[in-house]
């Protein structure tokens, strides 16, 4: 299997080195040099995109996620007007609209407080997508920094960070999140902070191992010999080659974060009522499994399809970017 990652950068670095010595005597040539190569039609990312579009499941996942995002973003413009407020609780609505099965006016039915379930599912998408993306972003920032320190410098720093990762892995995940929420307090912000803080260890490991595999290359030595700083070597030579596994891993962990948020809300430790969150809706639905099964069907399907879309997208990215991962 040809290694798409390494060839262009390595070639570029050799070229860079030679040019620098021959012409300017400076360690690095003017940055226009890079433009020439960027113009090549067959790039790593171009190839990846082409392979991605051939994967039907991945395309379906992208379409589904796009629909979800569109619904969530535009919700304020049409959902409350058509289906009623997803949060308002008043006696009149409860009496009139309690537990209506799916119908034309309420495609997903209504819940025990007379609120339209479709409206609540759409607004729930906001919470889930926001928590999924923000929590993963936090994990990535912490994980990349610690993973970079660990992989690049090795030695004592490496051992310390990896032992810390072991500690985080030793905890049963959900229990640890729940305990952390007990300390931080319930609520939307604490949920994504807790999930984000706990997610760094896997990202750090993935990034560390890709740094280890990249940093022994000749072009990294060459750059160092030319006096490039650590930061520059990281940013210009290691990051671009180590980033693919991170992209794949983060996509999948957005799905994981959405599942965790749903679980926390289900346990009553996440987003608090009356805010519509899918896990919370399932918690409400537990009391009406016999009389109003539609209350549990739609939020569950929403979680399932969204997480599945991120998983399939991650699979597609993995194949397209040719990332080797443990299954």
């Amino acid at each position, binding site marked *: 299997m040809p290694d798409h990652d390494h060839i262009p950068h390595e070639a570029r670095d050799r070229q860079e080195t030679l040019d620098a010595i021959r012409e300017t005597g400076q360690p690095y040539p003017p940055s226009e040099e890079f433009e020439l190569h960027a113009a090549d039609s067959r790039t790593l990312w171009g190839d990846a995109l082409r392979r991605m579009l051939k994967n039907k499941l991945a395309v379906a996942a992208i379409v589904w996620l796009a629909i979800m995002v569109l619904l969530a973003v535009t919700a304020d413009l049409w959902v409350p007007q058509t289906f009623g407020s997803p949060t308002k609780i008043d006696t009149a609505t409860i009496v009139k609209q309690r537990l209506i099965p799916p119908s034309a006016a309420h495609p997903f039915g209504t819940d025990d407080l007379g609120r339209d379930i479709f409206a609540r599912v759409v607004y729930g998408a906001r919470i889930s997508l926001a928590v999924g993306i923000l929590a993963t972003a936090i994990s990535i920032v912490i994980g990349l920094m610690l993973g970079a320190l660990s992989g690049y410098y090795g030695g004592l720093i490496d051992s310390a960070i990896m032992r810390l990762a072991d500690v985080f892995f*030793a905890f049963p995940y959900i229990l640890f999140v729940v305990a952390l929420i*007990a*300390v931080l307090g319930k609520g939307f912000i604490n949920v994504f902070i807790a999930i984000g803080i706990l997610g760094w260890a896997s990202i750090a490991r993935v990034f560390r191992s890709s740094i280890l595999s990249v940093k022994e290359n000749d072009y990294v030595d060459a750059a160092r010999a030319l006096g490039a700083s650590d930061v520059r070597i990281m940013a210009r030579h290691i990051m671009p080659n180590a980033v693919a596994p991170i992209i794949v891993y983060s996509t999948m962990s957005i799905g994981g974060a959405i599942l965790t948020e749903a679980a926390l809300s289900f346990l009553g430790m996440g987003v608090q009522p009356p805010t519509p969150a899918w896990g919370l809706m*399932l918690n409400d639905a537990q009391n009406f499994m016999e009389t109003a099964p539609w209350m549990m069907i739609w939020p569950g399907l929403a979680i399932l399809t969204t997480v599945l879309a991120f998983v399939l997208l991650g699979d597609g990215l993995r194949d397209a970017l040719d990332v080797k991962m443990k299954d």
Partner: protein
Amino acid sequence: MLKYIARRVLQVIPVFIGVTLVLFLLQAVVPGDPVKMITGERAMSPALRLQIMKANNLDKPLPVQYVIYVNKLLHGDLGTSYQRGRAVRDMLGEKYPYTVRLAFAAIIIEIIVGIAAGIISAVKQYSFLDVLVTLSTSVLVSVPVFWLGMLLQVFFGIVLKQWTGGQMYMPISGAGGLSSDFPDWVYLVLPAITLASVSTAYAARIMRSQLLEIMGADYIRTARAKGLTSQGVIWKHALKNALIPVVTFIGLDLGAMLSGAILTETVFNYPGIGLEIYLAIGRRDWPVVMGGVVLVVVVVMVINLIVDVSYAFLDPRIRYGGAAE
């Protein structure tokens, strides 16, 4: 080999210290006055307050408290529940057998269904069955376990009962007992399926990808060239090697399941250790939470250790591979 085991055992120590330290710090910063959690909201004289603090070592500085705590832990003392006044060890000891039973029931499902599905999927690659297995594993990984539990409850507890006119249904809550209509093991079925779902999907995926990878290996081609039947090749040569990573995964998973399935146990109101810890968090009974999590973490660490060492026995590449990270 001994050296490998020794190194692996030594790795456990810093993790244990780290885990207890993290837990200790968490309960130290948790909002709320521990004395009030012990006594409830009632007025008390400063002298009494001091006495309660002394009895629980709350008057000492944090580092000293930590040392006392770890020392007690090493002697098997997990402390006393704030609200129940009972030894945490006894409280957890009552619940743990339930968790162990549930974990083993789930592991049996995982072994049978996961490995079988993986083998079928790999042997009949690209067939209808393979596509079915591959797709359903993706779906299973994405299902929220508590929702799966609720679906099973609705189907086997409510719908099935209506269809059969109350003749046939399954219990959806609790763990049986003397007054129950069912034998105790029936209560395990639905929670075990729920708990096993995600891991079974992963086991099937690993089994499939391992078997496919090995069937492409040179020695398999040699075995075929030698004239062995496909069946013989699969059962005698491929499966043996392909099973190693799957067994490792299942071993690690057993550790995870023994750590209490907080979601499954909550949905089915199953009295295991996960539910106990969850309820303790809700009422801020920190000794129970810490005792429970420490117990669970130790179990997980020991099982991971056993799995790693037996993996090294089975696969010489690990033990001679130098830095086994």
